């Protein structure tokens, strides 16, 4: 067993090294263990997120950990069509063969309420009472940490596809049951820094939320951009209260320093309000952002307001499908979306894009790992996932064996208008700009090293 694992890892490491040496720019196909191919997708014309058909009997249980109630309940609503879409697809294909039996996927909801204590309680309930096989989540790094701790205690694999704080997977907090499929703070900012090192602008203003996340995002961006572009100047740096009402005083302060780019890592509703108020103040400068992607906001900003938004979420974009596969998924989703009822009839769900696309990708990866493990035994899942190389619809994703951090090429785009057709008759957006040309930041420019204390852990 150990030998097999060693051999497996050795092969993996070798192939990884080969991939890195030979194909550093991701332009060529990397050798992959498996892939998600939308051509194999079931007929989804009966899919309705408001009415997900939970399978009966012996199932694979996925614990959907999200903020389902309270003022931030939008998070829980947002990803529900994603997990149910993937589960519905897999279930229609007959489920996954685990431990010699075809099982369908059942989704059990755990409400974190946005509070650590509720997150802990609900994770315990899901692990002990519902006996879920895997956990899926979650918005908020402090909540993800609680879930990861409980997951470790009860040995349940946890796919973190939404919380990006570096610290979650460092030497102190790492646990072998948690896998992060999302890029972390450093990856995201290395990519952003790489992107801006190729652009002419040198004067940057930073405006982030005043808490750990905002500070670490800004810190990482400054550090990595300075490294790539020493002449850069950070002309202002401010951190605002969460849920700020009036951005104008900050904007006046920022305007006085005459920046060329405004960098923000704000999430909702701050990001939206910031963008809106920046444009209202008559500021046309590019806004480098991660979460200003909500269609509702973009629509309100209009064409003038949305051009010059620079979004760096590891997304697949609607207007420039990179592959035919992507276009197929886009079409299947978008056509189906037109039949959905409230709240999923909103424009927000029109495309599986940005954060939705990314998590959909990850969810398929998770199911694929279970399929290949042929079991819901956590040890078998870990064995398959560690070092896995997966062809997703947004390029190749590699799960680093040592620190369970997914690494991959990142995509950044400057929003432009008009947008192209995603498929004949379907514009990505009307009335506001969307992703234009997509810049690929090769993996090697946006991959931080494995934390010192975790190096060689998996061997």
């Amino acid at each position: 067993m150990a030998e097999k694992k060693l051999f497996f890892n050795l092969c993996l490491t070798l192939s990884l090294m080969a991939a890195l040496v030979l194909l550093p720019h991701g332009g060529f196909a990397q050798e992959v263990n498996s892939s998600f191919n939308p051509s194999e997708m079931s007929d989804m014309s009966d899919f309705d997120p408001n009415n997900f058909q939970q399978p009966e009997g012996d199932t694979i249980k996925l614990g959907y950990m999200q903020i389902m109630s309270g003022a931030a309940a939008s998070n829980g609503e947002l990803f529900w069509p994603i997990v149910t879409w993937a589960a519905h697809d897999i279930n229609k294909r007959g489920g996954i063969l685990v431990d010699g039996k075809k099982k369908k996927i059942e989704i059990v909801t755990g409400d974190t309420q946005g509070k650590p204590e509720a997150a802990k309680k609900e994770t315990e309930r899901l692990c002990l009472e519902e006996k879920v096989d895997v956990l899926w989540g979650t918005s908020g790094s402090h909540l993800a940490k609680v879930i990861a701790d409980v997951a470790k205690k009860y040995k349940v694999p946890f796919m973190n596809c939404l919380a990006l704080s570096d610290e979650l997977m460092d030497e102190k907090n790492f646990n072998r049951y948690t896998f992060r499929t999302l890029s972390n703070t450093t990856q995201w900012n290395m990519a952003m820094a790489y992107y801006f090192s190729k652009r002419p602008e040198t004067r940057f203003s930073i405006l982030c939320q005043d808490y750990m996340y905002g500070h670490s995002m800004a810190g990482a961006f400054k550090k990595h951009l300075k490294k790539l572009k020493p002449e850069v100047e950070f002309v202002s740096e401010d951190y605002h209260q969460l849920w700020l009402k009036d951005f104008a005083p900050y904007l006046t302060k920022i305007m006085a320093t005459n920046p060329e780019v405004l960098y923000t890592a704000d999430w909702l509703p701050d990001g939206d309000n910031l963008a809106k108020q920046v444009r209202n103040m008559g500021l046309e400068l590019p806004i480098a952002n991660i979460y200003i992607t909500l269609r509702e906001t973009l629509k309100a900003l209009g064409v003038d307001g949305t051009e010059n938004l620079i979004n760096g979420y590891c997304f697949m974009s609607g207007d420039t499908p990179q592959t035919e596969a992507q276009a197929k998924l886009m079409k299947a989703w978008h056509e189906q979306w037109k039949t959905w009822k409230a709240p999923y009839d909103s424009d927000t769900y029109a495309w599986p894009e940005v954060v939705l696309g990314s998590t959909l990708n990850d969810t398929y990866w998770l199911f694929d790992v279970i399929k290949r493990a042929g079991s819901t035994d956590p040890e078998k899942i870990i064995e398959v996932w560690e070092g896995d190389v997966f062809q997703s619809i947004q390029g190749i994703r590699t799960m680093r064996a040592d620190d369970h951090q997914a690494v991959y090429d990142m995509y950044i785009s400057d929003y432009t208008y008009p947008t192209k057709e995603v498929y004949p008759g379907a514009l990505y957006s009307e009335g506001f700009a969307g992703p234009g040309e997509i810049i690929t930041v090769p993996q090697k420019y946006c991959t931080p090293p494995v934390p010192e204390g975790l190096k060689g852990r998996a061997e």
Partner: protein
Amino acid sequence: MIAKKSAPSWKQWVFPCLVGVILLAYPWVLGTVYTNIFIYFAIFSVFAASLNMLVSYLGVLSFGHALFYGGGAYATALFLDHIEGLGLFTVILIGGAAGAALGLIVSPLLNRVKATAFALLTLALGQLAYMACLKLRFITYGEDGVGGFPIPDLTLPGIASINMMTAENFYYLAVVVLSLCLLLMWFLTKTPFGSIMIGIRDNPDRVDFLGFNLPMTKAIVFVISGFFAGIAGAVYALFQNLVTPDGAFHIMTSFTPIMMLFVGGIGTFAGPIVGSGVMTIIEELATRYTTQIALFNGILLVLVVMYFRTGFVGLYLLIREKLFQKESS
């Protein structure tokens, strides 16, 4: 109000023994999930009971009781985080002391106001604590809170050392500590000081002219209330092994015990405990079947205030009275 003196009989021991047996067997019968839910219930019972001291005995409503609770929780967490080798009961008492100290600090301010102004001033102080907790990152670690600190074992010198990381062991600790708190608070209402507190609620001016130093008496109540809220916070910190500004100081942390108090029944000692139980059960049921917990809470509050101002305890007394009347007629 004097306890009826009846001949001691085996009957009066039946109920406490039954409760004792249920409490002992609980974690083994219902498992970890329900054990942890019970610990929440116990923590919030004490927290709500400490608030009840202000509402039912001083007649003022605190909208910032999380100040004391969160203060206790953070004190315990930070002490464990920075100092090694602290005993279990020491850190719990540190939490209580922090709550009491905060009560002492704010008492000169609180003594100046009453009624709505009191509610608002406590709201302001609670929010100030929340903001400060987010801002003083070098002490509190900001949003992420203080977590992962070592939980000391319960060491009984020469007898045993018990690991507090398991739900069952912690359950017994929490039940003992928190029952003790409730018992102390109940006892307090029976002491001369307790009669003075009740007097202040009914007629503060008269209490003043009976020769009791009103500000001093109130300050002591704030300190005691802060102490027990601090203990509740300390147990919460140990239980979670994580204290965050949202969990400790958020406005909802202040509102939750208010809701419990009202649902249980204001002006009674059992009110906060019953309320905590009812609210915990409702939350448990609600999270399983719906995401609209706040809707249930809202409707419950409106119904209680509109139709059963005496809460569940009052409802129980009413029903008992009705039944009793039927029996006797």
